[in-house]
């Protein structure tokens, strides 16, 4: 039984009714509980909980300090390729958008790596569009072998892979996976992803399971906030994280809270997610899962990121650029989306220090890296149904 069966027991309309029926007394009762059930967490996401944000914040702060201390792991994204076969309506990389397409060669990957490593960062997050024929798994693995010379931890944020492919990339040096479901609303997902392999909702939904089974050290899930009702998306994201942590206790499960940002194509988000909503989600998440990692990216403004430091975040990106080659050449208008917080790594570290937080550059040394050549993967074979995708063998 995968997560799909786990979360479809919460039909959207019933969930909506339940969120709106939560009373002030329900919220107070949950705030006094030691361990929260999904139904309790739902109370904290309700409109009724909005008047308890200060209490939520204090509890979330205390839990975060006890579990993680006053530390923040810093990382930056590195875009390897923006070729894409999908038509995601909210993304600049959509195949329908006329932007300059580019894939870094290995020398360019090394140049970008040198520029990023010079800032002191040791954790890197690599990204590609969804075009396996161009930015193949083997290409990503070869990039990892270059990056392993500069970084102690390599995160992966690419198209959904098979279990074997995840294992292959772990051997190449990948430690963690970030993959957003974008929206847990299945019919909305179908509308927003009209073409390309990403249309397969179940294959993407099960990707975190496959990564955990492959032995990924850390797996980060999330929904793109603004596409749908944020209360429901936050609820399903937390349910997903909790499901993964229960099923794969050896994997560090994390949650990202990305808000949709302006991009090429002009898609307008259907739902407005305000700062106070992000605060409500983050603090509810901390109370529901005290140990979970929470990532806040440069999608958020410097002003907002500075103020939510104490509320539960454990990882932040810095010195970000969402364009291929952007760390050495800047963004020539081909980024995936516009970032908001444009501070450099030293500027972020200085802000953290001034706020009484320690910037952590290194939180893991890759152990699983295989020195010998990995060989090639056999043909990529993904069936529309996610049931048979793991039949591919090396």
């Amino acid at each position, binding site marked *: 039984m995968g997560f799909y069966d786990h979360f479809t027991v919460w039909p959207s309309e019933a969930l909506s009714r339940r969120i709106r029926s939560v009373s002030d007394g329900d919220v107070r009762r949950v705030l006094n509980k030691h361990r929260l059930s999904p139904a309790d967490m739902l109370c904290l996401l309700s409109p009724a909980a909005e008047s308890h944000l200060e209490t939520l914040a204090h509890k979330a702060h205390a839990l975060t*300090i*006890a*579990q*993680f*201390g*006053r*530390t923040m792991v810093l990382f930056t994204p590195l875009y390897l390729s923006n070729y894409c076969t999908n038509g995601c309506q909210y993304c600049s990389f959509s195949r329908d958008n006329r932007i300059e397409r580019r894939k870094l060669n290995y020398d360019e990957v090394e140049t970008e790596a040198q520029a990023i490593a010079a800032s*002191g960062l*040791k954790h890197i997050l690599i990204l590609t569009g969804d075009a396996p024929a161009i930015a193949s798994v083997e290409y990503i693995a070869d990039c990892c072998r270059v990056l392993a010379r500069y970084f102690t931890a390599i995160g992966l944020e690419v198209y959904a892979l098979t279990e074997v492919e995840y294992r292959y990339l772990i051997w190449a040096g990948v430690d963690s996976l970030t993959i957003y479901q974008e929206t847990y609303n299945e019919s909305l997902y179908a509308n927003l992803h009209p073409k390309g392999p990403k249309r397969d909702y179940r294959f993407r939904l099960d990707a975190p399971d496959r990564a955990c089974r492959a032995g990924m*050290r850390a797996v980060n899930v999330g929904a793109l906030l603004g596409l749908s009702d944020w209360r429901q998306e936050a609820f399903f994201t937390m349910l997903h994280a909790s499901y993964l*942590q*229960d099923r794969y*206790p*050896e*994997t*560090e*499960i994390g949650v990202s809270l990305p808000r949709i940002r302006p991009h090429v194509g002009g898609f307008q988000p259907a739902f407005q997610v305000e700062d106070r909503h992000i605060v409500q989600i983050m603090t509810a998440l901390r109370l529901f899962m005290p*140990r979970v990692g929470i990532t806040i990216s440069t999608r958020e403004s410097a002003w907002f990121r500075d103020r939510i430091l104490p509320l539960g975040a454990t990882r932040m990106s810095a010195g970000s650029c969402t364009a291929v080659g952007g760390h050495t050449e800047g963004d020539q208008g081909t980024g995936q989306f516009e970032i908001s917080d444009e501070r450099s790594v030293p500027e972020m570290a200085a802000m953290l*220090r001034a706020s*009484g*937080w*320690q910037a*952590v*550059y*290194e*939180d*893991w*040394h890759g*152990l699983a890296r295989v020195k010998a050549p990995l060989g090639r993967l056999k043909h990529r074979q993904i069936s529309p149904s996610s049931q048979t995708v793991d039949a591919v063998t090396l």
Partner: protein
Amino acid sequence: MTPIFSEDQLTIGGRAFDTRLLIGTGKYPSDDMIPIIIDASGSRIITVALRRVDLAAHTDNVMQHIPDYMQLLPNTSGARNADEAVRIARLARASGCGDWIKIEVIPDNRHLLPDGHETLLATEILVKEGFVVLPYTNADPVLARQLENAGAAAVMPLGAPIGSNRGLTTREMLQIIIDDIHVPVVVDAGIGKPSQACEAMEMGADACLVNTAIASAGDPVAMAGAFAAAVRAGRAAFLAGTGAVNTAAAASSPLTGFLYE
């Protein structure tokens, strides 16, 4: 720092220490605080997560803040099994962090509880490789005995889940370990207040390791001093011999009085 009993030293791995408080380096807002915490705590043994050490030392690094006179105790934080713990230990030694290693094998990110079986496997391997091994474990007397037999230099049972500040929730099992194990017993994890460290020492623990309770205190420096005092007081009480605790009042009508009639 002057010990209360000058002959009362903690000996681990052939090295003697006048202090019985071990400290950590995690969760501080700045590594600059580490030397100040060392001074305030009087500690001479400090544990460092190797995962956070920049082995290439290109950036500001926790190791630069630890004085040479400290006994470094690298730990294998992040290891999920014996194999990873062994690899991290070897990496620590190869990078100049010495032969001491605190084994942490934690396959459960929900509660951060250690895996006894994998910890024992890693201990057996690393002892053979000449490491001074201090395994962090659940408060399991049988496992503690197995670790002692495998050559552990000390055992480090938890008082409560790591970072929980809940105190000695494993008290009964800790007492058995303290009573039965011949290598030093260092109570690690869960100690949230100086009174709890004092209690562990009164029970006869050889030392306490405290990190979260100091690092997350409102005033970490003052809290480091408070823990130092509590550990000294608890040790002094243990050596002085605490009075027996009676669970029932003394009978006013003796049951064996007839023997003397």
